[in-house]
């Protein structure tokens, strides 16, 4: 009996101890399977297997009009739905050479930052939970709820709000919008230090995060790791700075760069980005210009034949949209370069040689959203 068990546990002849993390595993945050090869508790290598929830969004885009594509992009990175929408809208606006009203730019930027905050809060609480601090999950969600309530008031939905439309917005924002954001800013400014006291300063957390999962700048650039994960390695990749869009050229903000390259550096970048987002919100919320909430667009949008490319900064990195149009009302080919796709595959590089527990910390610090990888 016992020999049988041992033979079953040890796979292959080279005594590789392979465990499958996922597709259903508490810390993969979705249906991702990591084939992890262990030696004792140490990870030798890992192979990500994806595609469990592949929906063929790129293929679906080829049959939909540009307005209809918006609601598909919501479902890629559902935590930065607004940024995804905006990327498609901006491609269409570029191609049609439509100048959107200033008001739209301001509101889009505010919504971007709110969405980024909500996403980072969810990341914070899930990251804490991955490391075993279960209470962070509820504190983060508690504060995120306020943002979602603002979203619900203006868009009618909390997560997948197809609020952008080529040329502008679906509606004007709710009259309470500005007040509620100001309320949220003053509330969250008080709560952010609690985040630091609870997790950032904690000696156990620092031991778990510092020096773990080191990613050099070259690795980050080579694998195309963007967003806070890349900036934790010193890779300056903030599209908001490189190619400002929306109202980002009108506000003062810093690109957060850390040179540590480890889990803690990536954590620090996100925490600092939350503060930065708050300050961007503060600068914008009182200065929304009056005007239309949408530019004049034809009801049926036909992009001139050609190729268009646009990048935005989502909460997880660089989202690039590449459209090939043949002049019809739906795109000939639409490619989304999603940030998580590139961020995932660096894991084998940086997780080799660490413990299982570190693997969890690393995958948490990369902040993966699986539907974004699978599309």
């Amino acid at each position, binding site marked *: 009996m016992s020999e049988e068990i041992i033979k079953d546990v040890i796979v292959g002849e080279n005594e590789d101890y392979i465990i499958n993390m996922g597709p259903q595993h508490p810390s993969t945050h979705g249906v991702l399977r990591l084939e992890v090869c262990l030696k004792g508790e140490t990870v030798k290598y890992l192979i990500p297997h994806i595609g469990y929830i592949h929906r063929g969004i790129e293929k679906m885009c080829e049959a939909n009009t540009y307005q209809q594509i918006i609601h598909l992009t919501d479902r890629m990175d559902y935590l930065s739905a607004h940024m995804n929408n905006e990327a498609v809208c901006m491609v269409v606006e570029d191609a049609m050479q439509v100048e959107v009203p200033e008001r739209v730019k301001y509101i889009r930027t505010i919504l971007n930052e709110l969405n980024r905050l909500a996403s980072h809060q969810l990341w914070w609480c899930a990251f804490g939970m991955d490391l075993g601090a279960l209470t962070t999950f509820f504190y983060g969600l508690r504060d995120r709820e306020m943002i979602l309530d603002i979203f619900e008031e203006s868009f009618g939905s909390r997560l997948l709000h197809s609020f952008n439309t080529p040329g502008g917005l679906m509606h004007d924002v709710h009259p309470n919008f500005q007040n509620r954001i100001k309320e949220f800013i003053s509330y969250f400014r008080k709560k952010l230090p609690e985040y630091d006291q609870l997790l950032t300063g904690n000696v156990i957390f620092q031991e778990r995060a510092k020096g773990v999962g080191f990613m050099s700048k070259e690795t980050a*650039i080579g694998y195309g790791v963007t967003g806070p994960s890349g900036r934790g390695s010193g890779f300056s990749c903030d599209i908001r700075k490189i190619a400002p869009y929306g109202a980002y050229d009108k506000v003062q903000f810093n690109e957060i760069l850390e040179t540590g390259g480890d889990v803690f550096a990536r954590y620090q970048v996100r925490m600092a980005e939350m503060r930065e987002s708050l300050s961007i919100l503060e600068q914008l919320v009182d200065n929304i210009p009056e005007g239309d909430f949408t530019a004049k667009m034809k009801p049926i949008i036909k992009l001139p034949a050609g*190729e268009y490319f646009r990048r935005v900064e989502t909460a997880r990195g660089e989202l690039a949209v*590449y459209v090939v149009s043949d002049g019809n009302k739906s795109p000939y080919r639409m490619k989304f370069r999603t940030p998580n796709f590139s961020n995932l595959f660096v894991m084998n590089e940086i997780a080799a040689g660490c413990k299982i527990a570190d693997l969890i910390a690393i995958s948490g610090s990369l902040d993966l959203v699986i539907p974004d990888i699978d599309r």
Partner: protein
Amino acid sequence: MLSREELTNIISGLVPGAEFPEGKQLLEVIVPAESYFSLAEKLKSDPKIAFNYLITQTAVDFQTYMTVVCHLESTEFRHMVVLKANLTDRENPAIDSLTALYPAAEYFEREIFDLFGIRFNNHPNLKRLFLEDDYGYPLRKDFRDEINIIER
């Protein structure tokens, strides 16, 4: 940051047979499939331009031919170039892999192989990424799936 003309001049000196189509949003280079890898190598290693960041790599099916498209950026100078190579053989399209230059290309190329059926030479692990082995190549324009795709 180099201007478009300067970049065009530098790149046209790197490999023979490169075309620069006019009137595009970004600077585009169309090279023959044979010199695709060597141009990418030179683009990356030339310190004057240093295209070290592969933003995305994809393919487009134009019915008569297929195009592999790479968006490259230099993190140092912040200029971008679109590298394209046309493949006329639809039955058995193949091109060199960029994995040796950009590690990110490994999975972009696996995705292209999965969805378009373009083979990449010298790829370390060319397996399908999302779909089963006997599935068709869904992003090709002649792909038909009567069961799951409803034509409108």
